[in-house]
């Protein structure tokens, strides 16, 4: 039987399946891929560095315990993000209790939430980075040049840099974006 090591481009469902077969590399890939969202959730909820590190571990421990029961392995990223939010809110409730007891926790440190919409935006940032890694370097570079670089380069600059006619930037961008949305669509439909 020949299997290759888990790669960045493997989809979540196959990473989960490999984890359940005991594949260390697949688990590492899962942690690398979705770790930034977990970390960002804890950060958005205002946890201290130490508490965020604790939440990171408790989130992944929960993931490990529950992995075989995840109903939609393809949507495991969203599920992990919600576990992270739940774990972070538990820590936040501790901050609230500390405020009542010791008064030295600022009011604004207590009333923080992470609405579903914001959570989805964090997830989207993570998914988009994953998708950029799968649509080919040239497409990824073009989309980054168009929408990430600040200030945004002119079409003349882009044409020169990518060695294409100005007239083909639009169609190429559309094709790259279609690839990107195709990648994201796979994730979305699974939820």
């Amino acid at each position, binding site marked *: *039987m020949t*299997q290759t090591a888990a790669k960045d481009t493997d989809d979540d469902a196959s990473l989960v399946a*490999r*984890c*359940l*077969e*005991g*594949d*260390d*590399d*697949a*688990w*590492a890939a899962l*942690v*690398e891929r979705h*770790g*930034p*969202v*977990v*970390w*960002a959730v804890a*950060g958005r909820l205002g946890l201290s560095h130490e508490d965020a*590190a604790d939440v*990171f*571990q408790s989130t*992944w*421990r929960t993931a*490990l*315990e529950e992995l*075989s029961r995840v109903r939609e392995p393809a949507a495991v990223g969203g599920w992990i993000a919600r576990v992270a939010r739940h774990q972070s809110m538990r820590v936040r409730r501790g901050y609230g209790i500390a405020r009542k007891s010791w008064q030295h926790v600022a009011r604004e440190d207590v009333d923080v939430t992470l609405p579903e919409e914001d959570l989805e*935006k*964090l997830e*989207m*940032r*993570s*998914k*988009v*980075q994953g998708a*950029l890694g799968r649509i080919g370097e040239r497409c990824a570079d073009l*989309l*980054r040049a*168009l*929408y*990430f670089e600040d200030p945004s380069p002119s079409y003349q600059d882009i044409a020169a840099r990518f060695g294409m006619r100005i007239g083909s930037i*639009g*169609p190429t*961008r*559309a*094709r790259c*974006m*279609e690839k*990107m*949305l195709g990648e*994201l*669509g796979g994730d979305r439909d699974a939820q």
Partner: protein
Amino acid sequence: MRNELHPRLRDLADLRDGRLTGTRTSAVKEHVGAGCDVCATASARFESAVAAIAEGPLPAPPRSVVRQAVHMFRAKKWAWLLEAPGRIVASLVLDQRMELVPALRSSVGAERRMLWMVGDHELAACVVLRGGHAEIVGQILPAEDDGSSQVVGEIEAMRNGRSVAKIPLDADGGFALRGLSYGTYALLGRVDGAEFVVAPLEIGDRA
């Protein structure tokens, strides 16, 4: 609204980026302006992807934190192997490693004899290190063997959840798994209809 009437993504993207020119401009603007749900959804998806690209990657968590989470997998993965329903977990009866002096333990060609109970069977194996690689030569027989036992089964060496070697047992229950690189293994097998697992098995000069 029929599908072919919707503007292409390219036109929607051009419209969004203020680059829609030419003869299609008015038709696209009119179509989108009329409140087409399909195009509104497509544009919204496009927009949210663009917004996510614009925000850039999320900051990476500290490496030490990631590493800790990666490492917690080790303990659990053995549990998955061992907890599989109907699988006999082999119990170690003898490991010569415990008795070897350290110098012998790491020398090339050193043998390490091991013995497990697997339900009603005994699994005896010898691990031999040969310059970076190891082989496991062994035999599975009924514990009450009178010399006439015919054993049917197979054995498989798993590493990181992947099968690296799989062979049928010979009629005497013998097997040899060769060319194993140093690392932590699980041996999965079937013998006379029963499934079993030996895990974890550390193989190498540090084991």
